[in-house]
């Protein structure tokens, strides 16, 4: 065998997921995402009262909108081991994906906080080191594609590397980049910009071969 045995799977997986995976960081930076009530309080962007309100809204919405399963195994097959909890709804016992976090739109006062669920195989970014994602990928050997717009060579400027993945109650995906909250070291400042690229501009020629 002179060719890779896994490359096709890895690369197709990359692209199939990328087609409905938010690739630009702008899409996620508009929202505030917290993994827990204490994260929210520690984050300092919202008051303790706002955090509690958001958390209780997300909790209630999760019970109302999240997929419900009759047994734990079915639920964990999608959301991973320890990804589910039992809930009593209308007197009946169900298993519901756990509350992995909650998200609210920045600057939209009065908007409802949305619950975030553990990632499923379909919502994990390729190559994610997140344990839930590795679990989810192992649990689901084949995922279906939705054919989409992701591509190599588009103009979106940054990838969702190192992001943390969640799924939503409707099966959508949310990626949160940790870089949005990390600033530059305070000891260095930019002294200039744009010192590379001038020859490519002046020649309008090929920088690659």
């Amino acid at each position, binding site marked *: 065998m002179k060719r890779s045995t896994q490359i096709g799977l*890895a690369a197709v997986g990359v692209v199939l997921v990328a087609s409905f995976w938010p690739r630009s960081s702008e899409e996620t930076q508009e929202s505030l995402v917290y993994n827990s009530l204490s994260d929210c309080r520690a984050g300092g962007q919202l008051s303790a009262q706002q955090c509690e309100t958001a958390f209780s809204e997300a909790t209630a919405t999760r019970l109302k909108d999240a997929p419900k399963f009759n047994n734990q195994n079915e639920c964990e097959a999608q959301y991973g081991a320890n990804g589910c909890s039992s809930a009593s709804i209308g007197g009946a016992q169900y298993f519901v994906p756990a509350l992995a976090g909650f998200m609210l739109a920045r600057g939209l006062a009065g908007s409802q906080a949305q619950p975030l669920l553990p990632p499923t195989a379909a919502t994990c970014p390729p190559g994610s080191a997140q344990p839930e994602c590795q679990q989810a990928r192992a649990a689901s050997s084949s995922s279906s594609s939705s054919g989409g717009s992701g591509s190599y060579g588009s103009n979106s400027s940054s990838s969702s590397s190192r992001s943390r993945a969640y799924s939503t109650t409707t099966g959508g995906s949310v990626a949160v980049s940790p870089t949005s909250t990390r600033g530059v070291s305070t000891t260095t400042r930019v002294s200039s910009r744009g010192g590379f690229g001038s020859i490519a501009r002046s020649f309008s020629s090929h920088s690659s071969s």
Partner: protein
Amino acid sequence: MRRVTLPPRPDWAAQVERLGFAFHTIDDETYWDESAAFAFTLEEIERDIEAPTEAIEELCFAFIEKALASEEILTSLAIPAAYWDYIRRSWQSGERNLYGRLDLAYDGHGPAKLLEYNADTPTALFESSVVQWDWLEQAMARGALPPGSDQFNSLHERLIAAFAGLRTPSPYRLHLTCVEGSAEDKGTVDYLTDCAVQAGLDARFTYIEEIGLLTDGRFCDGANQPIETLFKLYPWEWLFRERYGEALAGSRCQFIEPPWKALLSNKGLLACLWEMEPGHPNLLPAFFEGDPRCATLSARRVRKPLYSREGANVTLMERGRVLDSDDGPYGAEGYVLQDAATNLFSADGNYAVLGSWLVASQACGLCVREDASPITKNTSRFLPHYIEP
């Protein structure tokens, strides 16, 4: 080696777009061309392409040792003297390289001949690694090619492994950059970003025009994040000559490809290798223009600028008459003259050049590009290949 005509998949465009291949058609011209494919035997691949590729890489390493000790060679390659020490340090400290592509003339008979080494900024990577791989799987699945067909292509897994080992400790933070406005370059870098992420790296893209300089001498990306390791799809000879060139040595940045690749991506390499190993079965006779030994070259010869990409400013001549040329902005730094290859594969008025891929200096993949002229240009088409069972 055979050129086999095959019906393209009826939905080929949708199929390659499904993989994220955004530049299958460039300026309304077909670039990804699956109306034919190249068939090789396993022996042709292993004996005539894989083994010579690694032998040439080894010869290149011996050349670097020799060049770094010789001001005469560095001058002949038009490397600015201000960067000689910078390049020496990158070689002596063992900075690793990611990838490169040898362009070879080969028609299935006799040894492959080195046309040039795209050691610094090769593209055609994603289509080599992923798109032709998927094409082969589908061709076998629908019975267009016999089951058990294979391909010289372990690029994807090698790239991931190489990224992980380029720097210690790993994983590390990696920036990747290219110029704005080239779908092909951006596609190549997007694909490499994907590989880097799968290697566990913290990979971030920034356009080269966005790069800034911090007050402490380090480069930074568009978000002012310091750059410690930078994959740049941008040639060293340009970096050396631009405003930030003088900041390179103090930037504490590890570059991929490393600075020593500037010695190999230079067409002067062809004359230098021939000087070291005259008569090597995989080399064509070549000399710097002005060298009296140019008179010993065959009447049919090629004139190449030391710095040139995508065939620009390359001229094919016979007895002083120009047979084919490509315009471009290069040539100010000088030229080499090289015997025209006599074993370029041609069929139906098309010429094919093989691209033999190296990842971390190991031969591990092949691409074939075809052009209506013997100079492979940026208008060439990419054709898939397979190894017959």
